[in-house]
């Protein structure tokens, strides 16, 4: 569960108020799109949820952790409850697909038996069978994206944050990815997907959170248009 109460963030270096008195709750098992223009505060929201930055005021709670009062040594433990898919995928170039995904389980000191079982499972879940030994540079954009998704899922996170995951792929692959995320959401994982693609959001529908100039200006559930992509 994600809960923000009267959260404001101002960057000291520029004096820009990126988020202003934001109140937001995303319940367990929900799927929500976060939309908004560049500079609206979407990236700040993600950084806040990953405890990369701290709020100047207000309270942030994610997966039962109070981020406002969290000590530094607790941050790695908290991050292990979240899966993140970044726009630039952030795969480690010197590791194969298998190693990139297994790395998350290594970090939490998972038993080898679990790694051997879980990694091939998520690789097949995202449709990357046969690519396990490939390096990121040998993959297409869509394959890299799915590898990043597999890495985010391997630890069975309570919350999956996808930061513009469709930004670097063609529309067809983008729609496939959202369908994949919806499938994962059905299994109980809370999903927060940040995107610029308004048309795609209208197509799928669901909960839409629109951020503009650091404020939540729209937060409602809408029905999808179900228009097929050409």
């Amino acid at each position, binding site marked *: 569960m994600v809960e923000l109460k009267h959260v404001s963030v101002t960057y000291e270096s520029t004096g820009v108020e990126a988020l202003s008195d934001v109140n937001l709750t995303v319940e367990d098992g929900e799927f929500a799109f976060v939309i908004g223009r560049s500079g609206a505060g979407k990236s700040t929201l993600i950084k806040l949820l990953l405890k990369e930055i701290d709020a100047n005021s207000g309270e942030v709670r994610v997966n039962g952790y109070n981020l406002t009062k969290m000590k*530094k040594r607790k941050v790695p433990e908290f991050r292990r409850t979240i899966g*993140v898919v970044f726009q630039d995928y952030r795969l*480690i170039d010197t590791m194969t697909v298998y190693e990139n995904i297994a790395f*998350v389980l*290594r970090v939490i000191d998972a*038993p080898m038996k679990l790694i051997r079982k879980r990694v091939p499972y998520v690789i097949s879940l995202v449709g990357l069978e046969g690519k396990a030994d490939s390096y990121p540079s040998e993959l297409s954009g869509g394959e890299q994206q799915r590898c990043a998704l597999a890495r985010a899922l391997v630890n069975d996170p309570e919350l999956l944050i996808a930061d513009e995951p469709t930004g670097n792929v063609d529309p067809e692959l983008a729609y496939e990815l959202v369908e994949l995320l919806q499938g994962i959401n059905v299994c109980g994982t809370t999903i927060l997907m940040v995107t610029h693609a308004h048309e795609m959001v209208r197509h799928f529908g669901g909960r839409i959170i629109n951020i503009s100039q650091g404020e939540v200006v729209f937060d409602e559930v809408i029905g999808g248009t179900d228009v097929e992509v050409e």
Partner: protein
Amino acid sequence: MKLSSFRYLVGQGFDNVWKNRVMAFASFCVLLVSLLLVGISVLLFININAIIGGIENKNEVIVYLLDGTTDAQITEIGDTLNAMENVSNVTLYTKEEAFEDLKQDMSGYTEVFDSLGDDNPLPDAYRIRVNDISQMEATVAAAEALDSVEYVSAPDSFVDILTEARRMFSIVAAIIIIALLIVSMVIISNATRASVFARRREISIMQSVGATNAFIRFPFFIEGMVYGFLAGSCAALMTWFSYDSLFELLSNFDALSAIGLGNIISYDTIAIPVTLTYVIAGSLIGALGSVLSTRAHLKYRAANM
């Protein structure tokens, strides 16, 4: 940490040396040059010290005894000299031996010696060596204070020059070695920092998936230790080869031993400590350099997130 995780991280450290071979090679070269600079300076210092020590051993003090000193007194003086702390190698040089040596040295003046007949004008004497030439003055004074000692001959000016030379050399060598150590540490620190900076993306990914700082640092520690070990081993081999070649070359010049250069230490006698020092110092500097740079980077990231 589980054994499997430990093995994984050690493996990652070794893998990273190969995967980041360009930066690893740069760090290796920097460490190698630094180790060689410091190592050669230290070896040079040790050898020059040994050479000065060799020259010191060649100096001799002669204690001349009064004419008419009895055999019992001569023996007593010899025992007293032997008992002195700073004195070694006490040898009696009788007036007869001295006279014979003088005759041989001045063989062209036989008529002078013939005119003396059985009269030997030379005194009995003791030849002694001092252990610490900086204490030469006190030792000479103690010998002069003995009964039946007429005069003590010591190479005072030579001793002063040698003592001053050793003191100056020690100061200069210490300054050079400390300066080289500082320069080496700065260069190594920058090289490892560049290596860590080149992998900042990898570090940020590790952090984003919940890796602890210790987990992130450990492979860097192993990686630094590996190239430090390799640089130390390589430095030991290069030093061995060049030192041995130089030693062989200098050994062929007999004239050098006459001026004390025969005291250069053979590599065989210092091979084990030199090799161990290189390898241990290389491994430690490599590992610490990597860990400190990674730590600084993680702190910087934490402060600038």
